[in-house]
């Protein structure tokens, strides 16, 4: 009885997983199919491997590598700035007494409730005024700190024993050095989870890049592929389009394969209402 229900559960789960994964298989399969076979229902598998052609086109006809470099630069800069600003702030909130601490925490909570789409129009006007539209700065600056990160790090740092911090201070460690030498190593699992969540969110973001970027050479992957999509869909260039899709999704899939456990733990731990997804 117990065994039968376990087998039934696996059967249901495998069937559901197949449905969930179908679009990924389809993308991979179509990206290596000869163009003539795309719309032929009798041909599920390609008659021969045509992937090279599609992937070559995705890389040469479209500046896909450029999009990915943009994605790496933007996500890397955002993450570095977020860690550099959020971790010290979270440490101050969690472990130090200072005037305005309550007000600062209220500010963080208020910022958490404001979705990124709300400041978009005023920020667009401000960047236009400063002649900073269509630049890396416009993509990076609005996300230079993260209320979500501050909140998350604060929770983790609260759990670090005060004795550890006092011992370091007695050894002559200043508060700034303390953040990076003592707090960062202790908070490492949370920082790792935050890093994955931040990179995934900004790698996939379409809304903000769509508003501030018009030059393809500055577009992160989703916006770049969207430019390419509107240009190519009419000529049914699905093969190259899907090859491009595989390439921009692959880094996330690889990261997920390597750090999936950290990632899922982070998602479960954080409470996603506060996460940027």
């Amino acid at each position: 009885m117990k065994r039968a229900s376990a087998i039934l559960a696996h059967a249901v789960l495998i069937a559901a997983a197949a449905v969930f994964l179908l679009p990924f298989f389809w993308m991979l399969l179509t990206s290596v199919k000869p163009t003539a076979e795309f719309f032929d229902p009798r041909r599920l598998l390609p008659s021969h491997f045509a992937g090279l052609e599609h992937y070559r086109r995705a890389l040469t006809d479209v500046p896909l590598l450029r999009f990915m470099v943009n994605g790496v630069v933007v996500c890397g800069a955002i993450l570095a700035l977020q860690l550099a600003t959020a971790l010290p702030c979270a440490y101050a909130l969690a472990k130090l007494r200072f005037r305005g601490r309550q007000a600062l925490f209220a500010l963080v909570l208020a910022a958490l409730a404001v979705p990124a789409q709300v400041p978009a129009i005023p920020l667009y006007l401000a960047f236009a005024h400063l002649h900073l539209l269509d630049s890396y700065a416009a993509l990076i600056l609005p996300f230079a700190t993260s209320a979500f990160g501050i909140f998350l790090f604060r929770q983790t740092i609260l759990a670090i024993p005060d004795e550890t911090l006092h011992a370091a201070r007695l050894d002559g460690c200043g508060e700034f050095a303390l953040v990076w030498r003592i707090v960062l190593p202790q908070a490492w699992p949370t920082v790792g989870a935050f890093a994955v969540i931040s990179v995934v969110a900004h790698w996939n973001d379409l809304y903000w890049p769509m508003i501030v970027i018009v030059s393809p050479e500055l577009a992160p992957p989703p916006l770049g592929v969207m430019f390419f999509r509107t240009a190519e869909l009419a000529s049914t260039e699905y093969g190259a389009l899907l090859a491009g899709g595989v390439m921009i999704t692959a880094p996330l899939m690889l990261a997920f394969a390597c750090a999936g456990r950290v990632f899922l733990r982070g998602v479960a731990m954080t409470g996603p209402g506060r996460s940027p997804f």
Partner: protein
Amino acid sequence: MRSRAAPLLATPAALLLLAFNLAPALVALGLSLTDHRLAVPAIRFIGLANYAEMASDPRFWNALANTALYAAIVVPGSVGLGLVLALLIAPRRIFGGFYRAAFFLPVASTMVAMATVWEYLLHPSVGPVNQVLVLLGFTPINFLGNPATALPTLAGIGIWEISGFNMILFLAGLGAIPRDVYDAAAVDGAASAWARFRYITWPLLGPTTLFVLIVTVIRALRLFDTVALLTQGGPAYATDVILFRITTVAFGYLRIGYASALTVTFLVVIVLLAFAQARLSRRVHYA
């Protein structure tokens, strides 16, 4: 002891939050009381005229209704599916990691790439979904091209996209239920799987469920990507949702003032939900 270093440590983040988050939100509130248009220097205070216009703007009510309908499908769909998947996966001793990864993959994937795939899968004539329908003797459905099916189709894609997320949250909630509660219940005669779910799992999971519900509602209200990629708000405004309307009014019609009024309205709804969430997560915390 008061710290002298603290203000220095906290100031950069505080200034950035003010500059890029809260101040712009307040500016949006201010702009919503003006007739500002993009690239027009003249700006006039017009009081609540934008809000009055909004109240009688059929496009606004249409976008609101579409957003509500989308949420009404995606929220029960993805919360229910996430719960069922979590209940099925939690007791499995093998393949647990594979199932988690498989259902979570859509959450982490790039929607631009996946939208291209969905467009193809759902294509009215050559799409595999319709070819299967034809094989089974049904008439093909123009999923994204028909005003009656476009929004429910986007909702289906939405369920595919976020159920795995809710599954992870439910798995965390299930993991927090102590084993001995089930053992005690077995002694008291709650032996069947249904009785265990009805009298133990469901009540103890209550705070998690409320939390997941609110989080999913907020997510559903922020629908944008699939609309921008697949339907552009059409056909016949059938998928015009609130964020897409705001973007169209601001950057299509260049009406910054009116778009700001729409944004403020959107923010008020989200903040109310965030308050509800904060109250509920406090209950989760003490539960």
